[in-house]
């Protein structure tokens, strides 16, 4: 399939992607691309990465048969890809381990990262601690408030957490600030972008580092079930966990894929974070992709109960997969995600993060439409410990 070879040499996925940044960043991006292209086929680099993924991250993560959810929902057999069991509790570490190895090979001594929910910030701080690198994490001031446990974790790991006060004080503003830091300190600093957005080569390399998730599912499904899944479901903010699961399956057209965006209060209210469902193509953070913007092209404030999905853009590869119809992009509301959070917690004894709770909420709708021998894999991209304060607050429960 032709789309398996994307992006093209200029970092384009069809009309999306590219490198829309000021001239100052062009050289470091080119150097990163060159280094990655050289190292990705280097046997020693691959071996080092595989070793880290096995011994530090704890891969492979299980493909868990959620028998009670299956029974409750009625329909397809539901399997959960347990990315929540990774070190640091989410899929984000797959990418940070990979990019940190790149940083090491490039001789950089300082790591910067942006974070929304804090999972990517924690993963970056973690790997920086292990490699003895300095780490600065940019985080929207509002997100610092709603994700305080992760802020503290990052500080324990030795990172500086910088609350970003500009703009909407969320993930997009943290990304702006991290780009500014990078352009200023490019000589010694490696910018670990946490999602499949940003300028080329980031959407490609973050995808490649997360694709281990989909590759494992291919093997696990074959070993456990003797065949491949019928459908995959993953939440989409920037879209790194989704692309990680989807990418190895893209050429296998018998596998249906569903990317679940944050519908917030409901698409019709305008208070959501669902650019693929309700946005239009534009340019943000160095790439052309679906974004949420007003008629004047100003980026819109987004809303989601989940800080990790609260982003007005999405990785350019998702935009391409939407346009060619390979992936179905849908949305669920805050309330639906919250209900799925509780259901998974009570029924399976697994506390999911609010981000994959969106995927669970959609899987709950999808499973009953499928036959009982069908296989449905949900990417449980992170654990929900970080979210318990948000949930308690929303439900009027005081924890202090």
């Amino acid at each position, binding site marked *: 399939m032709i789309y398996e070879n994307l992006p093209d040499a200029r970092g384009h996925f069809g009309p999306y992607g590219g490198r829309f*940044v000021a001239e100052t960043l062009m050289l470091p991006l080119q150097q990163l691309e060159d280094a990655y292209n050289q190292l990705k086929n280097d046997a020693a680099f691959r071996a080092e990465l595989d070793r880290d993924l096995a011994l530090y991250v704890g891969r492979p993560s299980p493909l868990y048969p959620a028998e009670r959810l299956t029974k409750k929902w009625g329909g397809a057999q539901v399997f959960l890809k347990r990315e929540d069991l990774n070190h640091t509790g989410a899929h984000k570490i797959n990418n940070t381990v990979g990019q940190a190895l790149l940083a090491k090979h490039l001789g950089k001594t300082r790591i910067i990262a942006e974070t929304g929910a804090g999972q990517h910030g924690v993963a970056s701080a973690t790997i920086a601690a292990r490699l003895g690198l300095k780490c600065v994490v940019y985080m929207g001031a509002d997100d610092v408030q709603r994700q305080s446990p992760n802020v503290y974790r990052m500080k324990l790991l030795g990172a500086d957490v910088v609350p970003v006060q500009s703009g909407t004080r969320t993930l997009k*503003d943290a990304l702006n600030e991290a780009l500014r830091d990078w352009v200023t*300190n490019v000589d010694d600093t490696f910018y670990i972008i946490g999602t499949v957005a940003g300028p080329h080569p980031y959407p490609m390399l973050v995808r490649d580092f997360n694709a281990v998730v989909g590759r494992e599912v291919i093997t696990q499904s074959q070993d456990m079930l003797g065949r491949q899944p019928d459908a995959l479901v993953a939440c989409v903010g920037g879209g790194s966990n989704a692309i990680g699961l989807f990418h190895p399956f893209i050429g296998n057209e018998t596998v249906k894929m569903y990317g679940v965006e944050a519908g917030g209060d409901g698409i019709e209210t305008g208070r959501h974070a669902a650019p693929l469902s309700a946005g239009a193509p534009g340019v943000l953070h160095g790439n052309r992709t679906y974004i949420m913007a007003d008629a004047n092209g100003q980026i819109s404030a987004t809303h989601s109960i989940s800080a990790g999905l609260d982003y007005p853009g999405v990785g350019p590869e998702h935009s391409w997969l939407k346009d060619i119809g390979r992936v179905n992009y849908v949305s669920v509301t805050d309330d639906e995600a919250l209900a799925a959070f509780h259901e998974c917690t009570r029924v399976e004894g697994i506390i999911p993060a609010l981000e994959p709770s969106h995927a669970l909420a959609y899987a709950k709708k999808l499973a009953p439409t499928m036959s009982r021998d069908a296989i449905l894999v949900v990417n449980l991209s992170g654990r929900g410990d970080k979210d318990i304060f948000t949930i308690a607050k929303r439900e009027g429960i005081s924890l202090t």
Partner: protein
Amino acid sequence: MTRIKAVLQALKANGRKALIPYITAGDPHPDHTVGLMHALVKGGADVLELGVPFSDPMADGPTIQLACERALLHGTSLWNVVEMVAEFRKRDTTTPVVLMGYLNPIEARGLDAFAAYAKAAGVDGVLIVDVAVEEAPEIAPCLRAHGLDCIFLLAPTSSAERIAAIAHEASGYLYYVSLKGVTGAATLDVGSVAAKLDEIRAQTDLPIAVGFGIRDAASAAAVARIADGVVVGSALVSQIEKHQNEAQKLPELLRAQLAEMRAAIDDVAVPERLAS
């Protein structure tokens, strides 16, 4: 000949350097922008750079980001900015105006519609910060077809190949970013800027304006010795921020601030390279 080329050629013929102030349109309020543009011309501006506010100005520092936020608070749109230029043109038909901004607000209105509207209003050039030369083939020809100059950034990190490619796409002048960083950042190393300008001049005859890090008369003069033009942005925008609540004072304050730089630049009017 375009208005930009005419002005820069005339300056060069007289051994003078261009002074190019930047302000963000709509800051502190859209009603003040045209008056500030005239004040900057009175203070000695040769070319005006007018920023189009954007919600996510990732190549700019905090000073210009805050200016964008002030302008957006009053709903300053791309179309408003073009209309400000049309208003400015009623009293000034000679000073070139360059719009500087990000791609998304332009594409939201349609590149072709924007170029036509801007040209008709009297805009002379466009600098789209997040369009580097790689993405320019889809954008620059449209701007050129409407008679707008395409201004591009060059950076300390631009390779010889990139300089050649950028010089090929650019017209009007080249904007050399004097340091690694965002607008409004600190320290300017004149020696390394001079070396890079020699490298750029080996590949192009386009005039080179230098910006980022020029905050006062002394740094303006230092840059004027080696460049064809001096861009002053954050220093003026900081003044606007400081006096945003007494906007009636701003025209005179900005005029005076720029006039100091004008005098300092004109003192070094005959550069070493002409004298030697």
